[in-house]
């Protein structure tokens, strides 16, 4: 074993030769002040506007084009070399009743025009509301570092006015110029001040990603995303609370802050700040994964009063969150009482949990009957990964009340059975153990994938057949079909 250590050492030493890192405090960008400034706007203080506008915004959240960049000579992709990026904002709301006739010119110290831009590049009509325009962010522009000036002129139906605002940009700076047309032409603010206190524990690992990367990562963790602010502008978003939603703040196409709904900055450990909802707060030092919980497939009518209480505990037996099925389903607009029986039963409840070992305690209830016995499931969740657990309506012959359907998101995808019949007790077994277990239950076995490679499969339905996904000789996903 010492030989292995020595070989690892030699290899690592050789690889590290010629690698030069730059201390972050010596990078050209000014030091971020993530938590030093006052919260300019509480993350949960969002604006509710007309539903039609919300629909427009939600529709755009899934795209990559929320950030207005581009233009004739390029907006601001990430700062390059000695460049900086500035974003100009105008007004507090991202919706206006008339287009704003606003022309912008960026000039260097010699008075040479770097770029001419128009606010109309950002404006787009609101579908169904012809008198409204929507602006989805500030106007981003890449500029060379140095002493610069913004000239702005406003025309149209408002009082024509123009002004000039000098500003200094260091290489790598990310600045926001807030046009006021008052005593001050534009207030200059750093991105770091803009996003101060907007990053929650879960969001730390998203900073620096593109929106597409953040979406991918969030999806892998069982989260949805939406853009709540871009290039200095706070966007109009709904005020509903969804514990599995990550709110992104973008600047120049890059995530500069992110937090879950209701997740305020946590100073350290598991402390709960006064203004936070702490049932979803997880220590910022704890890597986060996600548990997805569904119900075994069932046919029939909705049983009045059916509900499930779910309690999530971490490895230290701390209660992380307590949910009910009905509340979780209704948060998605699904209520069995309203006739949405199938969506109610097929709902998937997702809960962020620390990666590692977690314990799920579920209790089913059918009023007026008393609650059933609590069902305990222990499941390992990987960092930024999703494990899926299927709850059984009644214990099976082996006494199992829940089944780990998939230990990882990748395994779940390879299994490809979001509504497969549960196969409790298989995940974690070796292939031989799984064969023996299946034989003891009178089931046949089909291996759907090994080590990430899918096998060919038929679509026939055989409830007495257990389908397995194997990784490194172990079952990582199992369901019957």
């Amino acid at each position, binding site marked *: 074993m010492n030989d*292995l250590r020595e070989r690892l050492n030699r290899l690592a030493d050789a*690889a590290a030769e010629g*690698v030069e890192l730059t201390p972050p405090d010596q990078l050209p960008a000014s030091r971020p002040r993530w938590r030093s400034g006052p919260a300019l706007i509480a993350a949960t203080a969002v604006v509710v506007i007309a539903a039609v506008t919300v629909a427009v915004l939600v529709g755009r959240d899934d795209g990559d084009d929320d950030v207005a960049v581009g233009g004739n000579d390029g907006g601001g992709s990430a700062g390059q070399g000695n460049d900086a990026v500035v974003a100009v904002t105008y007004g507090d709301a991202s919706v206006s009743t008339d287009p704003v006739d606003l022309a912008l010119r960026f000039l260097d110290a010699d008075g040479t025009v770097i770029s001419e831009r128009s606010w109309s590049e950002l404006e787009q009509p609101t579908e169904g509301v012809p008198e409204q325009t929507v602006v989805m962010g500030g106007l981003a522009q890449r500029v060379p570092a140095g002493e610069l000036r913004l000239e702005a002129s406003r025309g149209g139906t408002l009082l024509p006015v123009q002004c000039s605002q000098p500003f200094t940009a260091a290489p790598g700076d990310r600045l926001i110029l807030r046009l006021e047309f008052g005593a001050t032409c534009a207030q200059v603010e750093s991105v770091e001040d803009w996003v101060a206190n907007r990053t929650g524990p879960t969001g730390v690992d998203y900073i620096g990603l593109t929106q597409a990367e953040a979406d991918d990562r969030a999806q892998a963790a069982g989260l949805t995303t939406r853009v709540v602010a871009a290039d200095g502008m706070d966007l109009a978003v709904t005020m509903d609370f969804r514990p599995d939603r990550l709110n992104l703040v973008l600047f120049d196409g890059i995530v500069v802050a992110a937090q879950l709904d209701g997740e305020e900055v946590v100073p350290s450990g598991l402390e709960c700040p006064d203004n936070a909802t702490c049932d979803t707060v997880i220590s910022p030092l704890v890597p986060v994964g996600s548990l997805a919980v569904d119900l075994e497939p069932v046919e029939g009518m909705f049983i009045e009063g059916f509900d499930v209480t779910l309690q999530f505990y971490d490895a230290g037996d701390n209660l992380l969150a307590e949910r009910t099925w009905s509340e979780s389903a209704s948060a998605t607009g699904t209520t069995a009482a309203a006739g949405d029986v199938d969506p109610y039963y097929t709902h998937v409840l997702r809960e962020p949990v620390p990666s590692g070992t977690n314990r799920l305690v579920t209790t089913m209830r059918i009023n007026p009957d008393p609650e059933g016995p609590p069902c305990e499931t222990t499941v390992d969740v990987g960092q930024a990964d999703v494990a899926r657990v299927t709850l059984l309506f009644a214990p099976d012959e082996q006494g199992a009340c829940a089944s780990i359907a998939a230990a990882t998101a990748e395994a779940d995808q390879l299994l490809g059975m979001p509504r497969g019949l549960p196969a409790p007790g298989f995940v974690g077994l070796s292939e031989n153990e799984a064969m023996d277990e299946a034989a003891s239950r009178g089931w046949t076995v089909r291996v759907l994938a090994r080590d990430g490679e899918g096998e060919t499969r038929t679509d026939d339905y055989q409830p007495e057949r257990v389908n397995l996904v194997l990784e490194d000789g172990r079952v990582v996903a199992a369901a019957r079909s």
Partner: protein
Amino acid sequence: MEFADFFEQTAPRLVRLCFLTTLDREAAADATQEALGRAWRDWGRVGADSSDPAAWTRTVALNLCRNRWRRLASQARLAPRAYTVDSRPDDLPDIDLQRALGRLPVRQREAVVLHYWADLGVEACASAMGVSPGSVKQHLSRARQRLAVELGEPSLELEVESP
């Protein structure tokens, strides 16, 4: 501890750790630079006396290394890199070990590197990897079996990890 001291102490070791888990010098430099950048941004909290900044940064770096998308992104992004990696494509030693490590699943490779190179106990490995100690033992056991075959060292299989 001042961040500058932390950087000096941590960076060389973190680059090595990241290389052994990625077997990619560029990705290792990128992940290390990013992890240390995050530590610096949040130094008020990460560097507080009560926390373990080295463990925090190691976990962040491992997470960054594990994500293939990040390596791809690092190749595509426009921002200037804050690190340099000289080009020496073929002169790293011990190609057999590189191949053997490369054939291990990522989690097994992480467990081997953390336990046998970084000298972490099972509990510390589990914390760094975000899995249970039982999982770490399982990964180590399987990794030793594979390495024993790949490297032709049967004694590896008989090794028992320290707690």
